């Protein structure tokens, strides 16, 4: 607590203060002040003395009502970080050593700074113990920072679980923290807040599809079976950290797990719509029968290759692990043996041509 904070409290007493267990009221020269377990009726000097003995309550009130401003998504998010439902004393003790929360793949930590001002640190959850990180302070830098994953590949979906490591924002104020999070996971704080307030505006798939135009108009043709497969393809936790809150329509839930993410997904995103368009065109093709000559192991190998690609596991398969069906040598050998002209088992895709 500092002098301006105390002066602000005294000045606010006449309108009444009720915040996080601190209660102050004034009636002409008479002040009534209360914290859990203590209550005092006194004059201004007595109020000031009481505040000096309980500085956390004053700096806490000042930080939340004056520095942050006590409403909106930012306020709710910053309160959530320090689990502000707890008593002030307990919180200040926890903040003195630091408290942390996970937001997608972000680790947000809060500590108490000068005069109750919170300081926040932001980084990748996997970097919590890492000593050699590039440090940043400008929220705008986050846009470039998270553009590519650790393998140098472009991340078109901000909430894909491929957030790069190796960086940190060691010291942000509350406003810059929320801006930085918004550059890394855009609109997640706002939608999380809306959900907590019971005001999340979910747009289900059929409604979202109805809205599409141009080349995306066809996504409304996706059948419910295809939609289930599409959600399983794109929207599960291994692909996106948002928690899917949309379904086929208001009455028809999808069976695919929604995910365990902290922040909600309120409608099919542009990547999903683009994928859905492709899935519609794939679904237009008629089934036909092919005959292939393969050994049982080769059939299983094809299944293993599909599985490895679908799970993004190809990089983990060791160069010389010839027991893995999706090993590169195994795949090359299969191609050499069974795809003589680039077609599986020499079977033409369009034999009539």
């Amino acid at each position, binding site marked *: 607590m500092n002098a301006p904070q105390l002066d602000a409290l005294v000045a606010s007493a006449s309108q009444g203060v009720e915040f996080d267990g601190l209660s102050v009221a004034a009636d002409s020269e008479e002040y009534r002040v209360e914290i859990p377990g203590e209550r005092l009726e006194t004059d201004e000097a007595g109020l000031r003395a009481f505040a000096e003995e309980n500085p956390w309550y004053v700096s806490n009130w000042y930080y939340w009502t004056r520095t942050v401003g006590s409403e*909106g998504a930012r306020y709710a998010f910053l309160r959530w970080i320090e689990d502000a439902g707890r008593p002030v004393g307990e919180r200040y003790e926890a903040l003195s050593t630091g408290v942390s929360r996970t937001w997608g793949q972000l680790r947000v930590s809060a500590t108490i700074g000068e005069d109750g001002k919170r300081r926040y640190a932001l980084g990748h959850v996997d970097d919590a113990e890492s000593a050699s990180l590039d440090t940043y302070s400008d929220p*705008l830098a986050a*846009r*470039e920072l998270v*553009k*590519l994953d650790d393998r140098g590949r*472009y991340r*078109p*979906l*901000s909430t894909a679980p491929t957030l790069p490591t190796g960086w940190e924002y060691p010291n942000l104020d509350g406003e810059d923290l929320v801006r930085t999070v*918004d550059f890394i996971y*855009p*609109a997640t704080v*706002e*939608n999380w807040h*809306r959900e907590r307030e019971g005001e999340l*505006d979910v747009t289900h798939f059929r409604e979202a599809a109805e*809205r599409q*135009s*141009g080349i995306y108009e066809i996504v409304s043709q996706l059948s419910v079976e295809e939609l289930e497969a599409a959600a399983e393809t794109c929207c599960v936790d291994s692909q996106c950290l948002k928690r899917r809150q949309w379904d086929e329509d208001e009455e028809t839930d999808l069976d695919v797990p929604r995910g365990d993410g902290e922040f909600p997904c*309120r*409608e099919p*995103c*542009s*990547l999903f719509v*683009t994928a859905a368009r492709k899935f519609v065109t794939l679904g237009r093709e008629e089934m036909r029968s092919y005959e292939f000559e393969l050994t049982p192991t080769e059939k299983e190998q094809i299944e293993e290759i599909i599985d490895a690609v679908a799970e993004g596991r190809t990089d983990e398969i060791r160069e010389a692990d010839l027991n893995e069906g999706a090993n590169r040598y195994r795949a090359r050998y299969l191609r050499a043996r069974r795809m003589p002209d680039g077609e599986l088992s020499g079977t033409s895709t369009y034999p009539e041509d």
Partner: protein
Amino acid sequence: MQALVIVGHGSHLNPGSSRPTFSHADTIRETGVFDEVREAFWKEEPSFREVLRTLESDEVYVVPLFISEGYFTEQVIPRELRLEGWDVSAWESGDGVSADHATLKASDVEKTIHYCGPAGTHDSMSDVIVRRAESVTGDSEVGDGFGLAIVGHGTERNENSAKAIEYHTDRIRESGRFDEVRALFMDEEPEVDDVTDFFSTTDIVVVPLFIADGFHTQEDIPEDMGLTEDYRRGYDVPAEVDGHRIWYSGAVGTESLMADVLLERAAEAGADVRGLSDGDASRGVADD
């Protein structure tokens, strides 16, 4: 409080697509004219659907960083922003190049949205094209003895795409600064492939009216014009083609002066830009 939202196309495939949007947003942030400046994208995040809710300002100026009036600026963006009662007639642009702005409400936020015409059809875009010619030639007086080709995508689906190109071509031609000024296109006549056929001047500055550098501006156009056999090997500026010197500038949208066009759009829609010195954002920042 007032906010500026710059809406761009973005890409699922090309990480560079959003960079001009970010860069112009940063230029405008530095002026301090707006309480908030935010980027939003069709293919990236925040999406058009969710950008407005991330803002605290009551007054929001939305400027599309798009080249033409058409499908995206008239249909997709207003729909995705949920602008209530939007109708393209509100822009009063009968000719496809005269959009101004419209003031509307968005249905998911309590804000006033000033939806502006695209950057590409604003008059001051002509200045950006000329500036691009100056920067690629390194000559702030460039014009005398030079031809200027303005290159557009051109598409049968959207005739306005060509109109924006023609509009600036006419304006710059009328200014008399260059010996010759021509509009050329990638997939309609007159085609950029034959650029040297259309100019009698030895020197030709070629400025593609595209927002971001990508496949078209970095691969197609240089190869089509014969600046290089293979874009991966790069090309000279200027490059010799059929006895002409081609000064190829790359996408006009990356020019820092674009930030001024966005600011002018917002100012004309009523944004308070009094904090701006000389009305020139990019120049102020470039001096830093």
